C-alpha cells in the first residue's frame, strides 16, 4: 500500500459524498409514505434517530441511498426521503456492494434484520465485512422474525417457544458482534432503539468510518417478542455495559467493572473489590481484535441480562471499493476516463494483436 493510498483511505466514510447546498432538516428526510409498523415498534425510534442524524451529516439528500432486504425493518426505505431499494430477503448487502464499488459519491446505508442479515444473509454479511466495502449497516435485532409473524431467529435464545418451535428452539444464538469480529470487520458497534442519544452517536461514527460499519441495534418487537431486551434493564441485572474509548468499562452504574482473567477473557467484578485500576480501559482502535472479541463475549446471549453497547472496534483498513477504483485509475494512467473518448482504444482492442487483411 503506498503512502498516497493510505491517505485516501484515511478519509472518512462520507468524504466523497457531495454536501448539501442548503442546510437540511429532519422533515427533508421524511417521505410521503404512511409509516406502517405496529404501534410501539422499536423501528420508529430508529427511523427517527436516522432522520434526525442525516441532516446533521451535511450530505446532499439525493446522494443518500438506503438498501434493505425483507422484514419489518426492511420497510425502512419507504419512510426516508432518499433514493432507496427494498430488495429481497438477505441480499441487500450484495446490491449495496455493487453500488458502492461503482458510486463513491453516495452515502449507502443497508437496513437489515436479525433474520435478514444473520440467517439467509449471513454469508453476504461476513463477506462484506471482510472486504470492508464502504457501507453503513444497521442491523435491527428483535430476536424474532417479525414480518412472517413470529418464528425464532438466529438471535433467539435457546429454548424459545415460537410458532415454529413449539417445544423450544435448539439453536445456539449468533452473537452478531463476535461473528463480525471473526469475519475481519473494521467497525463493529451496538446500540439500543430506546437510547436515542447513544444510537445517534454510534450511527454518526458508523457513517464517518470508511469501510463496512456494522451497527447492531437491539430493537423491541412488541407484537411477537415484547420485552426481549427487558432483562437488560431489570433491577437485578448487570445490564448495559457502556463502551467508551479511553474510559474504564463499567456496569451497574459503576459498581461493577470489567476485568481481564488470566487467560485473556473478561469478567465482571465489583470495583470496590478489585480496584478501578484493574478495570480495563476501552480502546476500539486496537489492531488485534482479541480484546473486542473478549468484550463481545460479555453478552449472555441466552438470558440477555448483560451486554456491552458502544463501539467495539474501529480500525482503518483500505476499503474494497476504493481499492477497486484505484486499480482502474492506475490502469487508466493518464488516459481520459471519459468512455466516449475511448473509441480508439476500443478499436485497438477489437483488433487484438494478430490481424490480417483481406482485399
Amino acid at each position, binding site marked *: 500500500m503506498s503512502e498516497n493510498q493510505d491517505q485516501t483511505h484515511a478519509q472518512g466514510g462520507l468524504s466523497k459524498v457531495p454536501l448539501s447546498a442548503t442546510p437540511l432538516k429532519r422533515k427533508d428526510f421524511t417521505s410521503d409514505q404512511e409509516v406502517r409498523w405496529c404501534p410501539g415498534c422499536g423501528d420508529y425510534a430508529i427511523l427517527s434517530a436516522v432522520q434526525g442524524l442525516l441532516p446533521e451529516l451535511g450530505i446532499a439528500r*439525493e446522494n443518500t441511498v438506503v438498501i434493505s432486504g425483507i422484514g419489518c425493518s426492511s420497510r425502512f426505505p419507504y419512510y426516508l426521503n432518499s433514493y432507496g431499494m427494498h430488495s429481497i430477503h438477505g441480499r441487500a448487502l450484495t446490491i449495496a456492494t455493487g453500488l458502492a464499488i461503482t458510486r463513491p459519491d453516495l452515502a449507502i446505508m443497508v437496513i437489515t434484520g436479525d433474520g435478514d442479515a444473520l440467517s439467509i444473509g449471513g454469508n453476504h454479511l461476513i463477506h462484506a465485512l471482510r472486504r470492508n466495502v464502504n457501507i453503513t449497516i444497521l442491523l435491527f435485532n428483535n430476536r424474532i422474525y417479525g414480518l412472517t409473524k413470529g418464528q425464532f431467529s438466529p438471535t433467539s435464545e435457546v429454548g424459545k417457544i415460537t410458532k415454529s418451535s413449539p417445544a423450544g428452539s435448539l439453536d445456539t444464538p449468533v452473537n452478531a458482534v463476535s461473528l463480525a469480529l471473526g469475519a475481519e470487520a473494521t467497525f463493529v458497534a451496538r446500540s439500543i432503539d430506546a437510547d436515542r442519544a447513544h444510537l445517534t452517536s454510534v450511527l454518526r461514527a458508523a457513517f464517518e468510518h470508511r469501510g463496512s460499519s456494522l451497527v447492531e441495534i437491539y430493537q423491541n418487537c412488541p407484537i411477537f417478542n415484547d420485552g426481549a431486551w427487558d432483562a437488560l434493564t431489570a433491577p437485578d441485572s448487570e445490564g448495559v455495559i457502556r463502551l467508551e474509548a479511553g474510559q474504564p468499562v463499567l456496569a451497574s452504574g459503576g459498581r461493577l467493572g470489567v476485568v481481564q482473567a488470566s487467560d485473556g477473557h473478561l469478567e465482571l467484578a465489583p470495583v470496590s473489590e478489585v480496584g478501578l485500576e484493574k478495570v480495563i480501559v476501552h480502546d476500539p482502535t486496537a489492531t488485534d481484535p482479541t480484546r473486542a472479541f473478549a468484550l463481545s463475549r460479555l453478552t449472555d446471549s441466552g438470558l440477555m441480562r448483560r451486554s456491552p453497547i458502544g463501539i467495539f472496534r474501529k480500525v482503518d483498513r483500505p476499503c474494497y471499493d476504493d481499492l477497486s477504483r484505484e486499480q482502474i485509475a492506475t490502469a487508466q494512467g493518464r488516459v481520459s476516463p471519459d468512455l466516449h473518448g475511448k473509441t480508439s482504444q476500443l478499436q485497438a482492442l477489437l483488433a487484438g494483436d494478430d490481424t490480417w*487483411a483481406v482485399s
Partner: protein
Amino acid sequence: MAEQVSRVVVRFAGDSGDGMQLTGGRFGTEAARQGNDIVTLPDFPAEIRAPQGSIAGVSSFQVHFADRDIVTPGEDLDVLVAMNPAALKVHLPSLRRGGILITDSSEFTKRNLTHAGYQTDPLTEGVLEASYQLVSLDLTSVTAEAVAPFGLKRKAVARTRNMFALGLVSWLYSRDMAPTRDWLQTRFAAQPEIRDANLAALEAGWNYGENTETFAVRYEVAPTTQAPGRYRQISGSRATALGLLAASVASGLPLFLGAYPITPASDLLHELGKRKAFGVQTFQAEDEIAAVGAALGASFGGALGVTTTSGPGLALKQEMINLAVMTELPLVVIDVQRAGPSTGMPTKNEQADLLQALWGRNGESPIPVIAPNSPADCFRAAFEACRIALTHRTPVIMLSDAYLANGSEPWMIPDATALPVIDPGFATLPNTEDGGFAPYRRDPLTLDRPWALPGTPDLQHRIGGLEKSDGMGAVSYDGNNHDTMVRLRADHIARIPVSDAVWDDPSGMAKLAVVGWGSTWGSITAAVRRVRELGLPIAQIHIRNLNPLPANLGALLRRADRVIVPEINLGQFATILRAKYLVDARSWSRIRGMPLTVSELTEYLLSEVEEVQHV
C-alpha cells in the same frame, strides 16, 4: 507441386500437459491468416488434471479450414496428431479411412498403454497402416536433438514436442511459418532459451516433412474469397467480452461485472478483469447471488451491470433477476450453457437452459432472451443484450454455450466509430404535475419506464420487489392494479422491436423448414448445405431473439409443410414454437455434450425432405 484440397480437418490430441490447445490454436490462426475460413473446437479434459497419460487427461483441439465459407468444426478428421496412447484411443474413431495419423512412438510405453487400456502396442500391430497413413516417429528424440543446443531440462525439452508437430503439419499444408515465428518471438521474449528451443523444434518439424519421404503428397488449401477488410480470429468468450465493452463505450456507462467462477463462463471474468483501462470493474463475489446482486446494485447506480454464469448459477440468480424484472432495471445476464441437469458434464456443451431462462422464476416474469449463433456473433449478441437492457430498463439473458465460448473463427474487425450509440436517457427532471417523480410513468409507445439515478436532485424515489401501483410505483396490494401491472410488464417486453426472421430458401420451392437457435446454427447450416448440394430444396430459419420472437415467425412457420427443430436438448424451442404458433414443430435432438453431428442431421433431413417434397 502441392495437391489442392478444398477443406481439411486436423485434430491435435495429447495429454493435458502436452500443449495441444496452444498448438491447435496456433495452427488455426495460421490458417485464418492465410485467408482460409476456419472453425475451431477445443475439447478439455473434464475438470481436474487427470493422471498423466490417462484417458481422462486427454486434451484436444480441432481445426477445420477451407477455401470457402464453413460453419462447423468438422467431423471426420483428415489428420490426427495423437501424442500418446490415450489420445489415440479416444480420437482414432474420428479419423477418416485413409487419413493421416501422426503419433509419438516414444510415448507408447507399457505404462502409458495400460493407462489407455491397450493390451498391446497398436503401433506395432500393423493394423493401423491398413486403414490410415501412419506416421509414427520418436518425437521425443527428434525434438531433443533439435533443441539440444539450448541446454533445457528434460521436462522443458518434452514441452517443445508440440512445436515439432506443428511444424510438421504446417509443412504438410504448405503454411507460411513467418507469423508463427514472430509469435514465438514475442511470446517467449523474456525466456530466450525457451524461445529458441521452440523455434528450433518448429523448424525441425518443418524440415522433417521437407527432407524425409514420409508423405507422398503435400497439400494446399487456397484462400477463401472473403469480404475485404481486416480480420482476426476470435473465440466466443473474447467476442462476448468485447461486445460488452463496446456497449459500455457506446453508452458511456462504466461496465461492472459481478461474477462467481464457473466453467465454462469463467473466461468472461478473466477477460474483463484485464480491461481496467476501460474503467471495467470486475467483482468476484462470494456466490452467484452476490454476483448478480452486485450487478443489479451497479445498474441501480447507473453502471452497465452484467453478470456471467452457467446453468446451475443461473438457477441461483433467478430470485435476483426477478427483482430486476419488478424494479425494471437494466441487467445483462450471460449464461454460458453446459450439459446438465445438476452438475452434469461441466465442460461439455448443451443448450438446455432455454426454458429456465424464459420461465425459471416465480410469478409472471417476462425477460428478453438472445442467443448468438457463432463464436464471433457473440460480439453482436452481447452488444444487443446491453442495448436492450439499457434502453428498455429490463434484465436480458444471453444464452451462449460451451461450444461458442471456446470455439473460434475469423472475424472482420468492426469499426469502433461506427457502433450505434446507446442512449440510456436518464431522467433528470420531475415528471409529475406537482414536481414529483413517478418512476413507473411509462413511455406510452415503448412502455419503458424513466430511469433516475441516485444523486439526481429532487427525483428521490424508492423501488423494490413488492407490486407497485401503475405510474407512481408506490407499494400496492390492489388486485386490479396487479392484473394491470402483470400485463403491462408482459406487454413491455413483447413490444421490444426485434428483426424479422428470414426464410432462407434459395430454391424457392422448399416445403420443409428447419428452425434453429444458438450454436447449432453451424451444424444445421452445414446439413442444409449438404441437402441443397444434393439438389433438394430446404428452408432454414435461424432465431437469435428468443423473446420476444420475431413478429413474422408465425407466418414463416405456417408457410412450411413440415417444421423440424434440431436442438441439443429434448425439444425446448420446439415446445415454445408449438405453444405459440400451434404448428407441428418436430423436435430432433442429440444430447451428447457436443455440437450436433452434421452427417447424422443431414441424413435425417434428407429423409424428411424426400417425404414432404414427393408425397
